[in-house]
């Protein structure tokens, strides 16, 4: 842990609220489980209401990010609860299932709602999950290029992921972390609702984000 460079550089710690949205059974809980516990169950109980989890990652030698994650229930009728989750969120992962074309439509609706209702600077990532199933080409219902084009147009990060094989899961959350405004400082625990998160610069340096990651 104590990398020689780290001791001389500034150390940063930031906490960000992340919300997972998307149609039911696209793999939201599985993505979180893979990210937080590095586990996978073929059959995961459906999420009722919501689950709260945290995970801390080292972005580079000097930067630690803690995600506070709201994993939400996907059924349409729970949608009215969503504003409570995304109201103060700094980032969102909107998930669809690459084998279900309709789940991308649902994802697009979520993106629209977030862009209209959530914090102005919210970082949104689109995740096409169940990539492992694409080994059978007949199962894929959403082409990568199609989703990617949409994501680019809407200004989203984009990954195709597999919670089952772990492919791109860490990459997804790391990419979000890198895009979050670390330099915007706020007092720890003073939970200002703004999208700036609660980046805390422990030693006062500001160039930390530039090293170790080529975003």
């Amino acid at each position, binding site marked *: 842990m104590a990398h020689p460079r780290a001791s001389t550089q500034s150390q940063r710690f930031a906490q960000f609220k992340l919300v997972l949205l998307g149609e*039911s*059974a696209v793999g939201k809980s599985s993505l979180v489980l893979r990210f937080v516990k590095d586990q996978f169950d073929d059959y995961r109980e*459906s999420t009722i*209401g919501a689950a*709260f989890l945290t995970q801390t990652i080292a972005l580079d030698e000097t930067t630690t990010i803690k995600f506070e994650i709201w994993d939400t229930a996907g059924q349409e*009728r729970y949608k009215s*609860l969503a504003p409570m989750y995304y109201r103060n969120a700094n980032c969102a992962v909107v998930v669809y299932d690459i084998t279900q074309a309709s789940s991308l439509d649902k994802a697009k609706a979520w993106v629209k709602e977030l862009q209209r209702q959530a914090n102005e600077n919210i970082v949104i990532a689109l995740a096409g999950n169940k990539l492992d199933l694409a080994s059978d080409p007949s199962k894929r219902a959403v082409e990568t290029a199609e989703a990617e084009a949409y994501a680019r147009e809407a200004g989203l990060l984009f990954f195709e992921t597999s919670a089952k094989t772990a492919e791109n899961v860490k990459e997804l959350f790391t990419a979000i972390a890198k895009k979050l405004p670390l330099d915007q400082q706020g007092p720890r*625990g*003073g*939970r200002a609702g703004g999208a700036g998160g609660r980046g805390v610069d422990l030693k006062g340096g500001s160039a930390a984000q530039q090293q170790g990651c080529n975003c």
Partner: protein
Amino acid sequence: MPSKNPTVAINQSPKDPRDRYGFRKQTQYVTLAEYEEWNARYEETLDRRRKKWEVLLRESGLSYGEGGPVRFPPKSNKVKRYIRKGIPPEWRGAAWFWYAGGQKVLSKNAGLYEELVNKGLDSPDSELIERDLHRTFPDNIKFKPDPPPGTKRLSKVQQQQLETPVVQQLRRVLVAFSRYVPKIGYCQSLNFLAGMLLLFMTEEKAFWMLWILTHQHLPGTHEVNLEGSSVDQWVLMMSVRESLPQIWSKIGGELDGSDFDPTSTKLPPITLCTSSWFMSGFIGSLPTESVLRVWDCLFYEGSKTLFRIALAVFKTGEPQIKAVSDPMEIFQVVQTIPRKIIDAGALIEGCYRRRNGFGHISQETIDLRRQDRRDTFAAERAAIAKGGVRASKDDASMRTGLGHVNNGLGAHGGHDIGRRFKKILVKA
């Protein structure tokens, strides 16, 4: 249609990784050692209680053959005490059905369930139901059996062909229910309620118990706008505020640390954790035996049980809750507290003990508060229909009566209601 009652194993071996209902003993929150340590003592309690129940039935002139009793003694303080100490697991289904008034509903609707099932398995909600069938109790052997040793991984299609009888029953119950009660249709969490009932009774009885649960115990909770859920969460929050002020000071606040405004009708964010307790009758929140002990009381005593138990859960976690300093940490703490309450007896005792218990929360209080809250929503809807409430970022949640709601509705403001209920409580 299979009509045999499901069976519950009376004794299980400590070597068996599953409990008497078929659930895995070990969970993410309870180790196998913790389970066995508790269960060794609990088995003794069960034996003792079973003998007491046998005497009670004999004294009441009721028989219990191999299939167990069908009729149970009339309600009394003694029976209530017996219920709170736990119904023998193998009699549970029959006792729930008896005391919740299942027979009355079933007789009035004789043949209706079969008719619904005979209409086939189409429902506007079929797709949603199918998605959840295999996500209901995958840790229960009756829902998802262990693959035979040495078998290779099965494809999804193969697994679905191996569907167990209880999964097929669950499909029929949920489809029939979604058609019979269109204002609810299918709501996630009904799969767990119905699935649990199916472990204890025939599918026809499970169907009617699901109807009773969703209409009498959790009115409106599962309806499309989830308004009943929001109503109950508010009632619960008011109860915590009065009964557990120190816990309230930790959980009642906003995410930014600001205090709860008693004049607002807005729900505190902690309800994001607690709403699932009610929606699924504590399934998935409490360990299995604790859920079943709660349901024993619920079907005998009514919906006040849910509020009393929720308060007892908070009370159980008081030390952890008080130790929380970070406003976000509270979610993880509150979410985890019930999952570790393996000692079902202690939970129930804590709930009903005379000093610092919650047995004083009356059904009358709960019902009055529910009604007041419903009135608030009705008034709000009327105001929105008139265009009287300013559209804001929150209008989506206001429409459904959930989430952040502006209060500008005069007589039904939270403060007034709070004052009124204080009076009721004093009276009680």
